């Protein structure tokens, strides 16, 4: 089957088919949603704020889809270009170091054989922003937690003023601290392990990387996430992209444990 000869598409399909077609608590109303006169949610209302006056980023979010793949994959949810290529909007493409350009070629040729996602391993903060299933932000004093539907995993962003660790053990999520600049939460992350993929194409992130994310909830229903990647080992200069996220109402994260009944990895092959 042609589908199975293209693992990028296979991975896409496998991933998106697991998205919440039906859900528990899917009808349970989200609390505190501003409404229009006719009772429908007013997603253009002002961004909610916490007791300290800062924007409250809490909620269930997905990236705003810009690509409808349902004609080719009925039943799947629409996705985004950045899911496949994180540098999609960059006219000149990503500024690869020569070895990184070669690596991407190899990874393309191998059809995601060694993609961590294909093996139920974590996918890191950048790729989680473009992944099609929702994540939930819970903002508490001193700490912002992101819960991912994908593989029931989480990420912590410390906002209690602590510095980044100096020489951390490399980790999948890195180590993240955030501080407010006006109404934007600026999150800095370092301490990644080598070998992360930023997208399905296999654009790399190395242990030398520093990631800056600027979270700006522009109104009740929309949040912009500007991402700057400084990874001199893989890229000749820093690059910046922006992702648009939208709020999902009246739902919650569903069960998604990647290794449960996992039968795909052993069939991954290069054509």
């Amino acid at each position, binding site marked *: 089957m042609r589908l199975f000869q293209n693992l990028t598409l296979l991975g896409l399909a496998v991933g998106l088919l697991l998205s919440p077609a039906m859900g528990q*608590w899917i009808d349970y109303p989200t609390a505190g949603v501003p409404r229009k006169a006719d009772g429908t949610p007013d997603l253009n209302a002002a961004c909610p704020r916490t007791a300290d006056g800062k924007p409250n980023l809490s909620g269930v979010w997905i990236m705003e889809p810009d690509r409808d793949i349902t004609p080719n994959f009925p039943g799947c949810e629409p996705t985004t270009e950045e899911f496949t290529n994180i540098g999609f909007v960059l006219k000149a493409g990503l500024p690869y170091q020569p070895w990184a350009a070669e690596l991407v070629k190899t990874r393309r040729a191998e059809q995601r054989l060694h993609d961590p996602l294909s093996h139920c*391993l*974590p996918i890191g903060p950048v790729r989680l922003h473009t992944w099609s299933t929702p994540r939930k932000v819970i903002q*508490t004093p001193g700490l912002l*937690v992101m819960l991912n539907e994908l593989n029931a995993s*989480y990420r912590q962003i410390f906002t209690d003023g602590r510095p980044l660790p100096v020489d951390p053990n490399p980790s999948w999520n890195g180590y993240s601290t955030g501080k407010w600049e006006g109404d934007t939460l600026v999150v800095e992350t370092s301490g990644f392990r080598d070998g992360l993929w930023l997208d399905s194409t296999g654009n790399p992130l190395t242990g030398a990387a520093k990631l800056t994310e600027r979270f700006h909830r522009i109104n009740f229903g929309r949040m912009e996430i500007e991402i700057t990647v400084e990874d001199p080992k893989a890229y000749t200069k820093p690059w910046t992209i922006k992702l648009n996220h939208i709020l999902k109402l009246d739902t919650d994260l*569903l*069960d998604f444990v990647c290794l449960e009944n996992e039968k795909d990895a052993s069939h991954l092959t290069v054509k």
Partner: protein
Amino acid sequence: MRAAGIWFFALCTTRISAQWLSYPTPGVPRTPDGKPNLSAPAPKGRDGKPDLSGIWIVPTGKYLENLGADGVEIPMTPWAAKLFAERQENNARDRPSGRCLPHSVTDFDAHFQPKKFIQAPGVLVLLFESYHSYRQIFTDGRPLPQRRDPAWFGYSVGKWVGDTLVADTAGVNEETWLDDAGHPHSADLHIVERFRRRDFGHMEVRVTIDDPKAYTKPWTVTIPWEYLPDTELLDWVCENNKDTQHMVGK
């Protein structure tokens, strides 16, 4: 030897060195010499309820190994007794966590690696260091869902009864085990957890298992949690697993 094997596997992955290990946890009461005062009163949230937030650890692995470690009677039905005996004879080889699947509700309650409670308005989140997984307990008054597709952590709602948070859980995926010994459960499993923070440094977690298909009557174990100040959860991903293929059993 199964027990030794599991412990070796587990302990090798725990904290050798840690980031932010010495970063002081804000809000921890301290004695004049600067040490955390773990017998100070439990903190309260803005709503006057105890705040369960913090990093907690079970000081022993015995409850993960077997929820009945303290000798509590576990009254298994013939179906459960047969399945439990099979798992024991098979050296618990098919334990989900042996295949990098996360633990579930009761075995994470019993797990000896750190877990972090985050008490936010309307929801309590438990982050687990091991398997890098989490679980939500909704405290916004919603009922348990009527239709319950099996979920790895089931569906949990909690409410305060005095100073105790009582969490009800149903809909737990039958793939999961109650503990590493292999105590089984059916789709009818109903778990009630009672979290009581006795003082700043100690939480009593009473777990009641009610599953008429597997047990002839409900049974309860009490697991002590201890507060772990001035540290953080570390990166723990079940990767590069080379053990599964070497597990032996019948």
